[in-house]
């Protein structure tokens, strides 16, 4: 029984996370709208609702600190939505800080830790100091002949919206719609979208008079500046009727506060702009100033989704992996049956196996799709970081996001957020110049950071580009020499991109003195390590005064991969096919030594060769036949290529990669292990790490050797 409550608690954390994310998006949108001088009341209301729900949930699940924070936020947002508080940049700053603190508070709650959260107490104090004014209660609603029964079912917020609309001089209409219960969702979205173009829907009231048991009739209370004719033209239909709510004649109005504004005698203030203007924060995934109708549709889409614990997906993937082994066994059985003379039977089994293979492929593909989430998740968080750092460093930053819908495995996304944040921080801190310097070189005052993502085969590519000052090669070299990574005599030998790549050595990309904000900065070596751990590579491109571009290439999923099985010194290893460009025959005669390294030539291009048996220290197993020929498996990742010398190729197989345990975490060169069938286990090679190993730090040493 407590299982149920525990499970509900897990759901709570999941929902809380989503609420915080949705709050963050709302705040970003409010920020953008503030810059333009407009305000969409539904954004404030949504933010309020998110926090309100969070508060209620926190109370239910005993998350006191989350509840306390939510309570404060709720007060502020309620004040904002009821017009008691003005939305200023300072208030927004506080709200953004609160979003950051939420994550920490939720994490603490989830791990049931009692560690103090000083930021939480600070911000709660600051919220308390925001004053508010009670609105002057005018009897504006008396202006219209509103049905008392209808007024009675309005919540406080809805009443406020109604008052505000009336005060702004809008007219009120009742749009009566008859719905079929079966299709109410879609029909509702439809009428909402059409009505919202004209103004704000205050509330939806069931009329209680249904023509039949599978229909229902609703009244939409609409506040709009359009005329009755315009509304009729736009909305009326077979099941839709529009009626204006009559304005009370001045004589019967108890206490008019402003002259009635019919016939356009005085122009009502314009409705808040809902159309995004160019040059502001642009996001292709969710346009920041999306008209509310689309937002509602997006919300509906969310409601169609199912929440899945990623461990369940892992378990399903394991089963798929086991089924892959079954499939291979079936194949071998079919061969044996055929070999033993039962051709007909063998063929039938083979055809069963093929059909099994196809379905398995579909199943696997389906599960992989479920694990995939759009990169937009990470990009949203980055947008917050950009705003925060921009303000702290007093730099105006324009963020352009494209390709946020590109999907990648959820586990990878979780690990990406930190490295990307560091990259963006460095770009704003070191890359983008201050306003006067930018003016001097003729750049727009606002610096641009562009985040782009797209799929390339089995990889996802993420680009982070800035239009800042570019990487100062001389500074890098100076630093590298000072840290002893490069000998002073070798400076002249390094090619431009080798110099740029020095940035990835430990200690290179931090400031010499701590700046107020970012301390010494986070080293790019850490970023590179994190990306490598995910099986990806990172490339750097920079031009002085023009900007810097970082390209991160990642495998789309970690879970199940097609692999090439190879035999080295009698042992079987697996190499993910995504990194394999081709496999060629190994001809010892064609291997020569260049700069202390073995290389061969492939179609006129030099290809470095790595003998796996040698780097792994594998002696041939006793009793194994000496191999006559071998193969070179050419691995290519990003812009680098390496040929792995192996004894034999054992064909392709779909494998599920399982992580090696903690005790083996220091072993480099493997991304895990997989079961091949009959309980045999093969290690899975990590081409990225091996390529890294072959190339790292050897560049300069190599030069010295050959010229030494």
């Amino acid at each position, binding site marked *: 029984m407590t299982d149920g409550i525990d499970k509900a608690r897990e759901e709570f954390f999941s929902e809380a996370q989503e609420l915080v994310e949705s709050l963050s998006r709302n705040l970003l949108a409010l920020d953008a709208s503030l810059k333009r001088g407009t305000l969409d009341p539904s954004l404030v209301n949504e933010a309020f609702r998110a926090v309100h729900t969070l508060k209620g949930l926190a109370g239910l699940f005993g998350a006191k600190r989350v509840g306390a924070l939510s309570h404060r936020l709720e007060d502020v947002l309620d004040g904002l939505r009821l017009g008691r508080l003005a939305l200023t940049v300072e208030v927004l700053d506080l709200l953004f800080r609160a979003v950051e603190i939420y994550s920490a508070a939720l994490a603490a709650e989830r791990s049931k830790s009692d560690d103090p959260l000083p930021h939480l107490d600070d911000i709660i104090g600051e919220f308390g100091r925001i004053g508010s004014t009670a609105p002057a209660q005018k009897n504006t609603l008396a202006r219209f002949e509103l049905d008392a029964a209808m007024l009675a079912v309005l919540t406080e917020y809805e009443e406020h919206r109604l008052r505000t609309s009336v005060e702004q001089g809008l007219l009120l209409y009742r749009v009566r719609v008859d719905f079929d219960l079966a299709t109410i969702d879609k029909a509702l979205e439809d009428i909402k979208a059409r009505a919202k173009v004209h103004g704000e829907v205050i509330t939806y009231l069931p009329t209680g008079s249904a023509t039949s048991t599978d229909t229902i009739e609703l009244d939409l209370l609409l506040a709009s500046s359009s005329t009755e004719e315009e509304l009729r033209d736009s909305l009326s239909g077979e099941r839709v009727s529009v009626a204006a709510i009559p304005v009370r004649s001045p004589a019967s109005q108890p206490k008019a506060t402003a002259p009635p504004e019919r016939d356009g005698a005085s122009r009502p203030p314009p409705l808040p702009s809902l159309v995004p203007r160019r040059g502001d924060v642009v996001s292709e995934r969710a346009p920041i100033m999306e008209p509310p109708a689309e937002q509602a549709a997006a919300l509906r889409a969310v409601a169609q989704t199912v929440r899945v614990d990623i461990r369940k997906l892992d378990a399903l993937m*394991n089963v798929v*992996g*086991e089924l892959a082994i079954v499939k291979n066994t079936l194949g071998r059985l079919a061969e044996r049956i055929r070999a033993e003379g039962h051709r007909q039977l063998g063929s039938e089994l083979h055809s069963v196996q093929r059909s099994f293979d196809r379905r398995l492929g579909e199943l696997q593909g389906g599960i992989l799709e479920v694990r995939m989430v759009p990169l937009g998740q990470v990009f949203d968080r980055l947008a917050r970081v950009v705003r925060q750092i921009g303000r702290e460093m007093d730099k105006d930053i324009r963020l352009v996001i494209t390709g946020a819908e590109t999907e990648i495995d959820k586990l990878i996304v979780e690990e990406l957020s930190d490295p990307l944040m560091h990259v963006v921080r460095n770009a704003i801190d070191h890359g983008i110049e201050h306003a006067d310097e930018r003016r001097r070189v003729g750049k727009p005052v606002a610096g641009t950071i562009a985040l782009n993502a797209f799929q390339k085969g089995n990889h996802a590519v993420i680009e982070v580009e800035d239009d800042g000052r570019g990487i100062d090669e001389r500074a890098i070299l100076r630093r590298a020499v000072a840290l002893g990574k490069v000998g002073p005599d070798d400076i002249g030998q390094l090619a431009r991109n080798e110099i740029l790549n020095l940035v990835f050595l430990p200690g290179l990309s931090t400031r010499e003195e701590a700046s107020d904000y970012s301390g010494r900065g986070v080293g790019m070596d850490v970023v590179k390590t994190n990306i490598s751990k995910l099986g990806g590579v990172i490339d750097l491109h920079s031009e002085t005064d023009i900007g810097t571009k970082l390209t991160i290439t990642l495998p789309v999923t970690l879970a199940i991969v097609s692999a090439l099985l190879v035999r080295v010194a009698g*042992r079987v290893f697996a190499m993910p096919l995504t990194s394999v460009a081709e496999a060629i025959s190994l001809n010892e005669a064609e291997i020569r030594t260049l700069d202390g390294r073995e290389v061969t030539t492939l179609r006129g291009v030099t290809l470095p060769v790595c003998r796996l048996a040698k780097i*792994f*220290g*594998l002696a041939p197993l006793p009793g194994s036949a000496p191999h006559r020929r071998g193969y070179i498996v050419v691995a290519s990742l990003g812009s680098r290529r390496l040929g792995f010398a192996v004894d034999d190729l054992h064909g392709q197989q779909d494998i599920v990669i*399982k*992580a*090696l*345990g*903690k*005790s*083996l975490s*220091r*072993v*480099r*060169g*493997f991304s895990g*292990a997989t*079961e091949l069938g*009959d*309980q*045999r*286990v*093969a*290690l899975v090679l990590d081409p990225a790490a091996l390529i890294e190993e072959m190339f790292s730090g050897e560049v300069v040493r190599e030069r010295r050797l050959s010229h030494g």
Partner: protein
Amino acid sequence: MADAMRAPASLAERRAPAESLGPREFLSFRLDADTYAVALAGIREIVSPPPVTEVPRAPPDIIGICSVRGLLVTVIDLRRRLRLPEAPPSRLSRILLANTEPGEVVGLFVDEVRQVVRLGASELELTANVLGGDLADHVLGVGRPDGDFVVLLDLNRIVGT
């Protein structure tokens, strides 16, 4: 078996206070010619060794990895860990799967599994006779069930949690 214990002359007192334990169950096993034991609660399963794949560049006392019903197990060579002489595996060899934190299943390779032993306070001696300076923390103490001599090992230290 009383003389089988190859303890060096120097004895070191355990720094940790001796815990008072009620009767506890241990699983005893043989390594080379001696009997050792670990807390039974820490062992989830005993299996016949499946094919073990060696892991290049791994620490020397890790034999390799194997698969038990799809679960990846890191196999530790207890002989090597405890600095005992090497010997080829026999048909009696077994792997003890230990309960570790989620994320890794560790298997201990032993020469033979003996039995479950219940030790009361009087049969336990927690002030350890150590085998060697740096292995002091691997040994919990000594048990003497029915006069036999069993070295009690600290499972947590062995699996590295």
